[in-house]
């Protein structure tokens, strides 16, 4: 697969297509709040695409309600919250509440961005499964999502 090399965001782990193993996992990447920088989010969106995920990207300036509403309609199994503004302790509880109101408690929520280590235990206590700080390898995030994403559940 040498021809794929230029597409690999990180070659330390083999990123293979999930599609062949069944339906692709759907992921929502969201930028909550007043935060005008989404280069990191876009790099991750691209890496997840190259790992075989279907990635809904909502763009900047999302309210907790918009994020939860998009997650509901798109029926994603995973939500990635990218935040650089420092407002995570104000926004994350509201996002988790909005998700809970819609019955989305089984969705895997992960976060990334400039989040102080001291805040991480409180964020995990909200139900966020993992927090990825600056410098995290893309493959680490991809593997975590692949390993922990719930499968679509039957309806009856």
């Amino acid at each position, binding site marked *: 697969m040498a021809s*794929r090399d230029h*597409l690999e965001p990180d070659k330390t782990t083999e*990123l293979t*297509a*999930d*599609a*062949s193993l*069944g*339906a*692709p996992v*759907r992921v929502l990447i969201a930028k909550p709040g007043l935060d005008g920088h989404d280069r990191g989010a876009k790099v991750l*969106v*691209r890496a*997840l*695409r*190259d*790992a*075989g*995920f*279907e*990635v*809904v*990207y*909502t*763009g900047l300036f*999302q*309210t907790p*309600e*918009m994020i939860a*509403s*998009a997650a*509901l*309609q*798109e*029926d994603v199994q995973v939500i990635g919250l990218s935040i650089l503004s420092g407002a995570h302790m104000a926004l994350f509880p509201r996002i988790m509440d909005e998700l809970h109101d*819609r*019955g*989305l408690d089984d969705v895997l929520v992960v976060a990334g961005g400039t989040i102080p280590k001291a805040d991480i235990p409180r964020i995990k206590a909200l139900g966020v499964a993992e927090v990825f700080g600056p410098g995290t390898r893309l493959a680490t995030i991809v593997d975590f999502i692949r390993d922990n994403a719930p499968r*679509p*559940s*039957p*309806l*009856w």
Partner: protein
Amino acid sequence: MVTAEDVILLLQGSDRRALPRLATLVENEDPQGLEALDAVFRLTGRAHVVGVTGPPGVGKSTLVSVLAGHTRAAARRVAVLAVDPSSPISGGAVLGDRIRMMDRHADDGVFVRSMASRGRQGGLAWATAGLVHLLDAAGYPLILIETVGTGQDGTDIASLADTVIVVEAPGLGDGVQAIKSGLLEVGDIVVINKADQPGAEDAQRLLRASFDLADPRDGRTVPILPTVGINGSGVSELVTAIDEHDAWLTATGQRDVRRQRAARSEVLAGLRAALDRRLESGPGRSPELAALIDRVARRDLSPRQAVNALAAALDSPASGRAIGD
């Protein structure tokens, strides 16, 4: 056995996750989703299905978003299916149409669903028709489909939508581009979006002239409308044109003609997919095929000769078991 009533109860009940989750099961060809779709299909056919197609970057998402807003302002519910391409390499996809539709977020009367094409060419996903039926059954009277950004070849939308809007933008080509086969042929309404940019009037004149080279299709002149999606200019004229086309479909009996065509196209596409799967699991794995492919690769046999040999094998009773297993 799931009945239509079960599915309707589920879709119209208090669980807001029911429709999106059922959509996922249909998209994934999960037996539960397909069974629900079979059960509910006889209750569909009520929605007006509008396709929005055109090259990448002409403003389809923005236009769809504004159209959805107009519909909501008239207190009608609306559903949007936005298709983006899947990567042929990883199978993954970036579904980015929602970025330009998020201002409609807070309203449960607007349902927006992004779809990856999952290997289908032609501008739609394999499951787009299935999701249209589902949304129709869920009671959405208007369903807007945004296709993958298409060039001259992505005309599948014409076999699914009642009304096809082809969106163009200024500066995309000359008078010969406008009379080539393809996208423009299937448009019931043509929109020149970004009409505030230089060249918009030229584009409109050029397209009008090219349409006027031939007699109107089905006795109807295709309107060519300038719009500016980002500020909503020209969009109420577009809404009027969509309503007029809807009325025309009913008055002329063209709706039935199109529904017939859509049914044929969906059945044949499904049959082809089923045959593909059988070929891949049966003859596609046979040593005979491998041997023929080797010979074609060595230029010992032409591709057509190999196909003829395989087709003859399919016709003979001896191999019938292998194909029909």
